[in-house]
């Protein structure tokens, strides 16, 4: 227990350091963006005086390292822009304040996160089930027509760009068959049926593409595990095929699958940029694309940090889960 606690502590510390480095690098890179947020919000016509005032108010007149420190400080203790009645307060954790959208980045992220979460989780469940299922079947029927069809299908899936599949999906199911809505998102709280209805197509598209990867991964693992001695042992014990595969093989196959799954999920939760664009859904990805287009520095850094956090968190969770699934991996000795 002590060991595990120490391990988790160490990992958490490592995560914080990695996050700090990422914050710093993002800040440095985005600082180089040819954007002067003050100029963009100066209004028309703009005079040098007004520009300077706006810069001071937003804190862009300070040296870059000071700005960076302010940013990090904001995450810990919140920030206030300006003073007096007109002051804008951004409470901790403040991942910046978007003057363009008049909102703290934290609020923006929380507004948009449910959309991305809905898209990602739904799709992830689908692709995990489909991917692992077909992978196992394919491995067990190795060399048969079924195996080869599934493999062909999956390599097609790996090769197809998500937006192409998305577009074809919209064209077929949305326009031609008029079965599902072509775009938009309805919150679960508003109408669960509409929520589901709007998400089906994105789920299917995202699942189709990702399932392919899992099919291949599962199949490869399955073939390897089926060649292991302990499978022979299980058979020599007189266990049925179903039990040999379902219990002895699958458990070992799932270990690497879960790893990749966690990382994929972490990556996608930070914004399914292309899916959101294709289906016009206002998730984190869309917010991000919008921020890039408008050089909204604060939002960019905020989201970058948030996605980095999710990715790193996913890594961490995967490591922990790994230890739970595989008794050989002791916490701390990975």
């Amino acid at each position, binding site marked *: 227990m002590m060991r595990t606690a120490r391990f988790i502590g160490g990992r958490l510390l490592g995560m914080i350091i990695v996050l700090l*480095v990422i914050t710093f690098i993002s800040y440095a*890179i985005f600082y180089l963006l040819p954007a002067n947020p003050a100029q963009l919000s100066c209004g028309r016509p703009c005079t040098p005086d007004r520009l300077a005032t706006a810069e001071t108010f937003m804190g862009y007149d300070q040296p870059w390292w000071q700005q960076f420190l302010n940013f990090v400080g904001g995450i810990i203790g919140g920030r206030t822009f300006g003073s007096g009645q007109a002051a804008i307060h951004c409470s901790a954790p403040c991942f910046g304040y978007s003057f363009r959208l008049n909102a703290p980045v934290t609020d923006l992220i929380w507004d948009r996160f449910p959309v991305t979460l809905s898209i990602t989780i739904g799709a992830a469940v689908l692709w995990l089930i489909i991917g692992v299922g077909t992978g196992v079947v394919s491995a067990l029927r190795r060399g048969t027509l079924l195996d080869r069809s599934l493999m062909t299908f999956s390599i097609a899936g790996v090769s197809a760009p998500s937006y192409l599949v998305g*577009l074809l999906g919209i064209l077929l199911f949305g326009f031609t068959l008029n079965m599902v809505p072509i775009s938009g998102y309805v919150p679960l709280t508003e109408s669960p049926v509409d929520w589901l209805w709007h998400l089906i197509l994105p789920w299917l598209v995202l699942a189709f593409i990702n399932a392919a990867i*899992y099919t291949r991964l599962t199949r490869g693992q399955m073939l390897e595990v089926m060649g292991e001695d302990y499978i022979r042992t299980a058979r020599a014990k007189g266990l049925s095929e179903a039990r040999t595969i379902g219990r002895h093989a699958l458990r070992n196959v799932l270990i690497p699958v879960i790893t990749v799954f966690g990382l994929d999920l972490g990556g996608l939760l930070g914004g399914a940029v292309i899916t959101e664009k294709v289906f016009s859904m206002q998730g984190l990805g869309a917010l991000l694309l919008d921020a890039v287009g408008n*050089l909204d520095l604060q939002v960019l850094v905020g989201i970058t940090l948030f996605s980095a956090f999710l990715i790193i968190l996913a890594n961490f969770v995967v490591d922990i889960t790994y230890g739970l699934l595989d008794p050989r991996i002791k916490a701390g000795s990975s």
Partner: protein
Amino acid sequence: MATPAGIEPVLETPHNGRQVQRRLLHDPAAVIGGALVILFILVAALAPLITRISGHGPYEYDLGALDETTAPAGFGGGISARHWFGVEPLTGRDLFAVVVYGARTSILVGVAATVVSVALGVLIGIVAGYFGGWTDRILSRTIDVVFGFPGLIFMIALGAIAPPRFPKSLLIILVIGFFGWPAIARVVRGQTLALKERNYVVASQAAGAGAFHILFSQLLPNLAATIIVFATISIPGKIGAEAALSFLGVGVPPPTPAWGRSIGEAISWVQTDPMFLVFPGAALFLATLGFNLFGDGLRDALDPRSESLGR
């Protein structure tokens, strides 16, 4: 996202070229993949020649091929003897030429970015794995950091930062390449860790070999198979990444043809002129498919474990 699915170490497999070739030729999928790869590479290399035969360059406007609403006139987006794949709406440029030249962009960026990734990844992975200790710790953390970055955002943002004089294609190659190296670095590091414990490495060390000799003479040749397979398997991903950037409007600047951009533009025209989507879309799909099939076959051919794993 950690490593492309199914990449497993291909360690020290005794193989020779002829054997691999024979195995590849026996795998119908790999043969189809290889044929597609060769086809697209040829198309990319010979683009000027091909368009000379087809009669139109990718930059030539043919406003006469459009109707008054600026959509291509005639059947199937203007398919005719003059324009084999029809024309682009709004410009009347020959879609065949655009697709052919698009192959140049895709293949060039895909391959070059892979080279960047692989070079960086192998160098960092091998150094981290071999030297271990603090070098490894620092490099591994670096790998974590790059993994933690939402790559796409940065690819988009860096496009805006770079000075206009800096060639955009080079920038895209570097950026895609840069965000691709951690995956291979991890694999190479892992294998190096395993390889350096091998007795022949220890023997070389004991015979007085320096680090340089061991890295390049002992380890690298044994990593070659992994690296080749990894490279082949990551090319389609890189082609996809370039297309995705072009699709999002931050790829190589127009008018240089790029499949992703054509697809992005074609979305809007899908109801009026579906062929505008079909041709570039099919090209992108087939090129990616070709590299995937071939890479898969290559891995199987190089990996003896892919055989005789039955029950």
